[in-house]
Each structure stands twice: as C-alpha cells, then as structure tokens.
C-alpha cells in the first residue's frame, strides 16, 4: 500500500515538475530558410523564411527580416517579431548575400555549428545580389526552402554542382591546406532560380567565383566520385556531342618534391545523350573520347592555374601533400602552392550511345 502511494506521488509530481518545454509542431514557427545580407554600418539583415501550411496542401511562404549588429542579436530580434517561437531544427538552406560572403561568414556559421538542433546536411549558398530578394519570391508549390534545397540536391546528385553542405563547408574550412566553396544562386525571373556558379572562399571570405560552364571540370577535381553532363564540339568535324558522365573518379599522385609536382588522373565513363552528326561510328566515338580527354585536361589545368593565381586551394592539394609528408610545414606551403605544377591526365570512355547508332 505504501509502495502504491509512493508511485502515485511520483507520477503526480513528475507531471507537475518533471515536464520539459514542449515544441508542438503546430504551435511553433519552423524556420526552414535563412538569409543574411550586409547593410550599412556593418549591420546584418537577417531574413527568416517560414513555410505556411495551407489546408489545400499547398505550402506558402512567410518571410520577415530584422537588422542587428551580430548573429546573436539577430535571433533575439526575430523571436521578438514572431507570434510563436521560431525553432531552427528544420533549417534547410542558409543564404549569404554577396557582400556578406565577401566580408566573412564564419561568425554566422558558428551559430549553426553551436546549435545542436541544426543538422549537418543544411545547404549553404551565396545569393548573387541580395539574399533577401531570393528568399522572398515564390518558387514551386512545396515552399521556397524545400524548393531551393531540392534544386541544389538535384544539381549535386545528377549534374555539375560539386557536393556542398554545412558539414563539408566546415570540414574544408577547418582543414589545413583546403579551402571551402559553396554554390551561387541567382534569381532569373520572378519564379525561377538558377545556379550560376561556385563561390570560392579563402578562410571564410569569398574571393573568387567559377562560372557555371566550368563547374563540370571543377567537380571532376573536387569530388572523388562524381556525375555530371557536358557538351563538347569535335574539333575537326562540325559535330557536337552531349555527354552524360555517369561515373568518374579522380586520383592524385605526388610525382616530385621541391618544387612539388602532382599528377591528377581522371577517369570518366559516360554515355552520349545527343549527337548532331549522322552516324556514330566506332571511329567517331574514339574521336569524341579523345576530344573529351583533351578538353578536360585543358580546362582543368586552366582552372588550377586560376586558383593558384588567386591563392585559393579548393581542391586540397595542400592537404594531399601533407598526407604524404611527415612533419609538413603549412607556412612554407603558402609559397610552394604558387610553384606547384599539376598535370591532368584524363582517361575517357564512352560506354553507350543510346538506343540508336
């Protein structure tokens, strides 16, 4: 009997005192998109995007902004303006305005890192122009945040955008001898967003960009395994071929020290999706393969030279050489990087040509 009374007492007092704060899904504002823009006097304008779930299953958008001097104050400002608590656990995408990205983003990203409720698969992107403008449009009917994150996901999985997310950005940022990057989004029309390139960071500041048409080569260099698609012109003939890269691998080899020399071996296996000529003879395929190899070699070398010129190392040559060297000196590497020679060797193979020859 005493035991029963004791249990009853515990149950009642648990209900009274043991409870923790609830976050019932329909009583909170679920923040799914975030944008940061730099304003005058180094103030930051933060834009929060919250999906509105309509009874007809269409998801609307609701955005509002606040201005503050630091990321922490920003959250306070936003909470104050909201009728229901804003929760960050389902954040899908964070956008940084161009100016913001050039000034440095690590202070903002640190708040993501510190917040246990934010996942590691959050997409980061630079918004060309203004982040707020991009967030305040209406794209698709699943809500802006989901639309934008699906857009990046689709382009990463199947097309030419290299893998990026919060974890990879932090990984690269904290990795010695490697610099982070993120995609650049641009609002083309009222309802269309496009990925127009990749922003390269040195430290936490955006210093350089790669245009969209070079992203295919960039992805070949950065991602160990990748997919993408690319259109080439066969030089001697007038024909054009669109190639879908199904499976490509890259491998680095350190061939010489003092000064360092690296060979990058790229293997591409692809299929031809479009071809403007009449017949795809085996000889023609050979030619296309050759052409593809040459193009990749050239373009990749140009890209790397470009990076060296800007002093950024998004491919991680420094990290690679460190893994081959005992007691690697990163101070010295700063200079060595400029003198690094990189040879790109590509091996392309066309496996299928579609259902017609």
């Amino acid at each position, binding site marked *: 009997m005493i035991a029963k009374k004791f249990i009853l007492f515990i149950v009642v007092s*648990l209900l009274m005192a043991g409870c923790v704060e*609830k976050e*019932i*899904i329909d009583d*909170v504002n679920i923040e799914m998109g975030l944008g940061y823009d730099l304003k005058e006097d180094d103030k930051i304008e933060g834009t929060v995007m919250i999906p509105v*779930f309509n*009874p007809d*299953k269409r998801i609307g958008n609701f955005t509002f902004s606040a201005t503050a001097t630091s990321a922490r104050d920003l959250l306070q400002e936003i909470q104050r303006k909201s009728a229901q608590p804003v*929760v960050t656990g*389902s954040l899908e995408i964070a956008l940084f305005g161009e100016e913001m990205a050039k000034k440095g983003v690590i202070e903002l990203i640190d708040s993501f890192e510190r917040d246990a409720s934010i996942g590691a698969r959050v997409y980061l992107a630079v918004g060309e122009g203004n982040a707020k403008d991009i967030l305040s449009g209406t794209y698709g009917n699943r809500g802006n945040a989901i639309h934008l994150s699906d857009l990046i996901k689709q382009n990463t999985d199947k097309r030419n955008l290299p893998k990026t997310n919060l974890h990879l950005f932090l990984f690269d940022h904290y990795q010695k001898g490697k610099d982070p990057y993120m995609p650049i989004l641009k609002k083309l029309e009222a309802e269309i967003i496009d990925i127009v390139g990749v922003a390269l960071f040195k430290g936490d500041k955006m210093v350089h960009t790669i245009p969209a048409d070079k992203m295919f080569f960039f992805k070949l260099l950065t991602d160990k395994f990748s997919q993408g698609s690319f259109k080439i012109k066969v030089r001697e003939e007038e024909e054009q071929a669109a190639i879908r890269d199904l499976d490509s691998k890259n491998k680095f080899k350190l061939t010489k020290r003092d000064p360092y020399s690296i060979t990058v071996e790229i293997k591409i296996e692809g299929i031809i999706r479009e071809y403007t000529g009449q017949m795809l003879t085996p000889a023609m395929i050979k030619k296309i393969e050759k052409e593809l190899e040459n193009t990749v070699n050239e373009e990749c070398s140009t890209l790397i030279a470009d990076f060296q010129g800007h002093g950024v190392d998004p491919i991680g040559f420094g990290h690679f050489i460190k893994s081959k060297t005992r007691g690697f000196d990163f101070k010295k590497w700063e200079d060595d990087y400029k003198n690094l020679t990189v040879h790109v060797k590509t091996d392309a193979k066309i496996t299928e040509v579609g259902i017609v020859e």
Partner: protein
Amino acid sequence: MKQLFKKKMMKELEKEAAKQDTQGNTGQEQDNYLNDHGWEILFKKSHDFKKTFYVNQKTGKKFCFSFITTLIDESILQNNALPYLLERDFKYIEDVKKLIPIADVQISERNEDIEKKLFNGYVLLTLEGEEKCFAFIAAQKEIVRNVAQPEVEFSVIGPKESFVESMDQNLNLIRKRVPVKELIIENYTVGTLSHSGVAILYIDGITNTDNVDTVRQRIKEIEFDEITDSSYIVQLISDNENSPFPQLLDTERPDRVAAILAEGKVAILVDGSPHALIGPTTLVEFFGSFEDYFLNYLLSSFFRLVRLFAVAFSILITPIYVAALSYHYELIPKDLLSTLITSRREIPLPPILEALFLELTIELLREAGARLPTKVGQTIGIVGGIVIGTASVEAGLTSNVLLIIVALAALASFTTPVYRMGNTIRLLRFPFLFFAELWGLLGIVISFSFLLTHLIRLTSLGRPFLEPLYPPRITDFKDAIIRLPFKKQSLRPQYLRTENPVRFSKEKAKEKKDIDE
C-alpha cells in the same frame, strides 16, 4: 417461508415412512432405523434431497436410498439398482457389489464421505442393521455440452475439437491423442466451497519432476472458496500476481495440450472450465498461434514475425506520435511535416489529450462490443469506428493522421493469438503514453526499460519468462520467434530441463539424396 417449507418437507417424509411401515412389520427397532440421522439435518433443508425406504422381498430387511435428485440420473437407480436389491438375496451391505450391475460402488464407514459423495452424484444406500456402514452407488446425471469448434483459437486448418466444461470429456480428448501409459493424470480438489477437481497432466520420463512438483505444491496450497474457472487457478498459482502478463498459457484446444505434453510441459485441467492451462511458458509462446504448426515453416515464421511487429507497432506507435509531435519536430521528414501540421491545424487539444481521447474511444467501443450479443456488437463496431471516427475528425477534435494510427494500433493488438496477452498489450500503451508526454523519445525508452526489466524478472513456474531471448539459448530459437522445419526440432526446449531432451533421432530423420537419385 422457510419454516413453512421445512414443515411441508417433514410431512412428506413422514408420509413416506408410514407407507413403508405398511409393507414391513412394525416394531421399536425398525422405527429407529426410520429415524433421521445426525448428518441428515442440514441436507433436509434442501428440497432436492430425498430419502426413500424399501424392503427386500427375500430377507425382509429394510434399506434406504438417500440422494440429491438434481445430481443423479434416477433411471439408473430404477433400472440397474432397485430391481436387484428388492428381489435378490440382500443380507449384508457387502452384498451390494455382487447384486447390482454398476461398477462404481463403494463401501465406507466414514461419515465425512457422505457429503462429498452425495454431491458428486452418488446414491447413499444403508441397510437395516448395519447403520454404521454405507454403500455409495454411482448414478451421476451427466449434463454435457457437445464438443464444439474452438472459438478463441480457431484455425482454418487442423482439428476442430475444443474442450468443454466436463473434465472427464476433456481428459478423454487428451488421452485419445496421447495413448501411452506414461501420461499421468493426477487429481486434486481445491476450493473450500466449490470442491473443484483439478487435474495435473504430464508425461512421466519427459517432464521435469521439479516442474510437476511446483505445480502440485502450488495447487495444494491454494486457499480460496469458489473456483469457477481455470482463470482463477492462473491467478492463484502465478509467480508474480502483480504482473499484467499472464504467466501460464491457456488453451481450449486438446491438440495443443497434447503437443505441449510431448514437449515436456505440464498441463492443468479444471473441472467446469473449457480452458486448459499450460506451463512453464515463455513470452514468445504467446505470439505463436497453434496454427503455425499446420503451415509450412516459412509461412509460419513469416506470420510470427508479422505478429511480433504488430505488437511492437501497437504499443509504440501512439507514444511515438505524441513524442514526435510534442517534442521532436526535427525528426519528422519534411514531406510528412505539411501533412501533420495541416491535419492538426484546427485541433485545440495537445497531442497527448488527442491521443488519449482516441485511445479511450477505441477501448469504449471494444468494451461495448464485448458486452453485447455478437450481432449487435458488430453494429456497434461499425457505428463507432466509422461514425465516431469521421465525426471527431470533422469536428476538429482529433487529427485524421492520429485516427489512422490509433485504429491501426488497435487492429495490430488483435493479431495476438492469445486473448489474455492481447488485453495486456492494450494496457501497456498507457504508461508508454505517459512517459512520452513527459520526456518524448527519451521517456519511451525509459518506459521500455521498465518493461524489459519486468519481463526479465518474471518467471513462469520458476523458469525464466523471457527465454530464449534471455537467458540467451540459441537452440531454443528453433521454435520461438521463427519456426524451423520439424526435422530440425529434434530436441525439446532447453529451458524445460526435460528428463529426456531428445524427441526423435536426428540421424534417422535425416535423408540424404544426391541429384537425380
């Protein structure tokens, strides 16, 4: 009223005695014989107690039948006893055995036996001159239900016999299936008022004697007045009375009893109960239907897995709903998020109250359905399920997602083959809900830990209840969560510690064939 009744009875008896008097010669001694004995006083208060006097035609000795009319078959008395006793040479009480063609005749001198025998449907016979000695003649009136189809444990394939209320008939059904002398049936009487017969069945040389001793001792120690069903026995002899889990398996199928006897378990039959008890048992046994043995092992293994999944689903799904919606919105996939939020948009109740409301509604429907005749019960189910469910969603009391979840959970709880376990599972949901409301997923894991501990601590007749999961015994997995083919079942379950662990020789059963042979 009572007084009046009594007087009437007395008059009748006196009249009867007077009638006898005219037949025989009167005297002081004979009058004594006609008088009431001490033990009869209480009996005479019941109107169905009768005492009749007769005189043997050869010896002229008076004799007398006492019996309870409602319990005996009077035609037996009229046809098989009375003619012989009246016409043949009936001098001593011992002669009864020779005179009448009834096998079950017992002679006794003990007054204590009288009550027991009379209420077991015997007729008491006394002879003039030997008042101290009685003969008991069996003349039971058998009111027996026909053997019917099993209803609780119905199976499409397999035998269609089920136990009835008569223990003799039940024993007959079992004996037919295990026709060996090693099948031992021990009989005990329990209950100070009900005097219920309890039989312990086991196979000598297979069943561990410790198990039998445990059952025997616990049954002997039962202190209760009226035992009307085997369910009383389950609760009275279970290892832990405070556990919601049944610790003995009950079945209405004689074939199942025969099968478990062969495994080396003990069965308990109670007179007046159409359910036999089986022990020691394990948790997983409650999720195996007996039909599993009639199907191919692949099918039955699959069904067992489905049932186990259904149990986990039934207990956990509503608490998980409450936990996820109250605390862990991050967990919910973003495609589901909009469905959940839209469905909960108009609902004023927090998830826990919403869930409790629906769970209790389902319990109400079930209770109402169970208390009503079958036909009406079905109607209630449909009315409740469709009308109340739809209406409460439309009225904005509950969300339609939760309605689906709760209905599925209720459905899943009915897949448990043993009815008692199904009830337990329905109850278990509520502590889980409480903890889910308190600490979300963490609370669910804590309540799971409590449940796990309880199950580890639980025993059935002193054997671990959670076996073969814990203590882990790989060999017993052959007939637990899955069922392996019969060829692999050559050993009896290890936890029963049987005296003869081998069911059949593995070598003989194994057939070796090459391709195209």
